[in-house]
C-alpha cells in the first residue's frame, strides 16, 4: 500500500479524523469506520475538490472496490478498470452525493455496479441498448413515510413468526435480535456492529419484509 488511511490527515478539520483514538486498538480497528467519516470526506471533495479528502476515500475504498471487482470479473485487469472508472466518477460527481439521503458506501457501491454493468455490456458487444442509466434511476424517488416499527410488535409476537425468524439472513437476524430481544437502540447496534446507522434501519426493514412475506405465504 502506498497509502494508509490512518496516516493521511486531510487539510480539512483533521480533528474529525481522530475520533477513533479513544477506542482500544485491536484487529477490529482497521475495519472500523466512524459514522459520517466518508460522508464528510465526500462533501469536502464536492465543495473544495479537496485532494487530501479524496486520497482518504481512495485509500479506503479503492482496495475494497478491487476486491469487489475481482469477485465479479475474476480478473485483475478488469477489476482495476472498474476501480479507476468508479473512483473517477466519485471525484467528478461528488456534488451529486446527498448525505441526507444515504451513506457514502451505498453511493459508491451503486457507481461501481453501474460501471461494471456497462463494462459487461460492451464486452459482450451485443447490440443491446439497455444501459445502467435506464435501469437505475440517478435521482431520488419521493421520500417514503417511515412506516414506524410499532405496528410490527404484534407481528413479531406471533408464535408462528419464530421459525421464519431463524431463517432470516444472518446479518438481519443479528440486528433484529439486538433491537427486539435485547432492546437496544438503533445507534447502540450501529456502534456495536461498526456499521452505519442507515444499515441498521435498512436491515430491520428488510427483515420485517421477509417475515411479512413468509407469514403471508403460510396464510394462503
Amino acid at each position, binding site marked *: 500500500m*502506498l*497509502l494508509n488511511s490512518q496516516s493521511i490527515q486531510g487539510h480539512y478539520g483533521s480533528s474529525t479524523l481522530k475520533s477513533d483514538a479513544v477506542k482500544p486498538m485491536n484487529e477490529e480497528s482497521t*475495519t472500523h*469506520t466512524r459514522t459520517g467519516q466518508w460522508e464528510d470526506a465526500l462533501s469536502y471533495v464536492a465543495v473544495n*475538490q479537496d*485532494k487530501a479528502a479524496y486520497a482518504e476515500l*481512495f*485509500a479506503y475504498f479503492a*482496495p*475494497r*472496490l*478491487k*476486491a*469487489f471487482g475481482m469477485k465479479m470479473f475474476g480478473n485483475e485487469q478488469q477489476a*482495476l478498470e472498474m476501480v*479507476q472508472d468508479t*473512483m*473517477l466518477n466519485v*471525484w*467528478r*460527481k461528488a456534488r451529486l452525493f446527498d448525505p441526507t439521503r*444515504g451513506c457514502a*458506501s451505498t*453511493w*459508491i*457501491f*451503486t457507481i*461501481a*455496479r*453501474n460501471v*461494471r454493468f456497462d463494462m459487461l*455490456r460492451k464486452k459482450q458487444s*451485443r*447490440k*443491446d*441498448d*439497455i444501459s445502467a*442509466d*435506464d*435501469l437505475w*434511476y440517478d*435521482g431520488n*424517488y*419521493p421520500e*417514503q413515510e417511515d412506516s414506524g416499527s410499532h405496528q410490527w410488535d404484534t407481528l413479531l409476537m406471533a408464535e408462528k413468526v419464530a421459525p421464519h425468524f431463524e431463517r432470516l439472513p444472518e*446479518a438481519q437476524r443479528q440486528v433484529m435480535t439486538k433491537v427486539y430481544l435485547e432492546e437496544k437502540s438503533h445507534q447502540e447496534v450501529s456502534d456495536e456492529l461498526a*456499521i452505519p446507522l*442507515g*444499515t441498521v434501519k*435498512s*436491515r430491520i*426493514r*428488510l427483515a420485517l*419484509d*421477509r417475515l*411479512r*412475506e413468509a407469514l*403471508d*405465504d403460510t396464510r*394462503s
Partner: protein
Amino acid sequence: MTHAVKHHPGIPLLEQYVEGTLEADVALAVAAHIDLCPHCQQLCQDLAVEQGTQLQLMKPVDTQDSEPDWQTMIDSITAEPPLANPPRQHKGPITVQFKDKTFQVPRALARLVEQQTKWTQLGSIANNKLPAGDKRHVSLLYIDKDTAIPQHTHRGLEITLILSGAIVDEQGQYGVGDILINTPDDTHTPRTLPDQDCLCLSVLSAPLKFNKGITRLLNPLQHFFY
C-alpha cells in the same frame, strides 16, 4: 400514480437487480416496476444500503507482490475537472402514441421508447418492439378491450408489466404497476376487461438461474396486507 401496486417481483429478483447481476431485459421490467412502486423503491434502497455496507466491510485482496500503482491512479483522476453542471434530466411525462391514444410510461423506458420503431398490428393486438437486445424480446403490447392475450411458448420466463388499463386471469386482476411472471408451464389465460384497453411491457427472457429454486421468484408478494 395512485394505484396501489399489488403484484411485485420476488425478493431474489430484486436482490439480483440491485446487485446488477440480473439479465438486462428482465432488469428493465423490474426497473419499470420500481418506477411505479414506492414499496419496491424502499426495498431496493435498503438492499443497496446492504450492498454498500458489504463493500465497506470487505477485506482488501492481499497482493503483496504486485500492488497496483494507486498513486498514479489518484493523480490521473484528480487532474480531471469535476462535473461542471450535473445533468438533471427533468423532462415532462414520457409518453407513447398508438393511433389516437397517448399513454404515459415509466422513466426506465424513456430512452427506449424514443427510439421505438413502429407498431405492427394483428387483430386487436399491436406490438412495438423496443431496441433492446438482438433477440428483440422486449416490446410494448397494446391490447384492445375484451381480448385474450396470447401465450408465448418458450423456455424462459414471460414477464408482463401493466402500464395502462388492467388485465384479469383466473387468479385475479392486475392494474398499473403490477408485474406478472409466467413460467413455460403456466396455463392461465389472461385477458383485458370488457370495457377497457391495456398497454403493457412484455419481456420474454432467457431461462434464469436461481440458487434457491424458482418458487420464491414466482411467489411474489401477492397478498400484502398493508
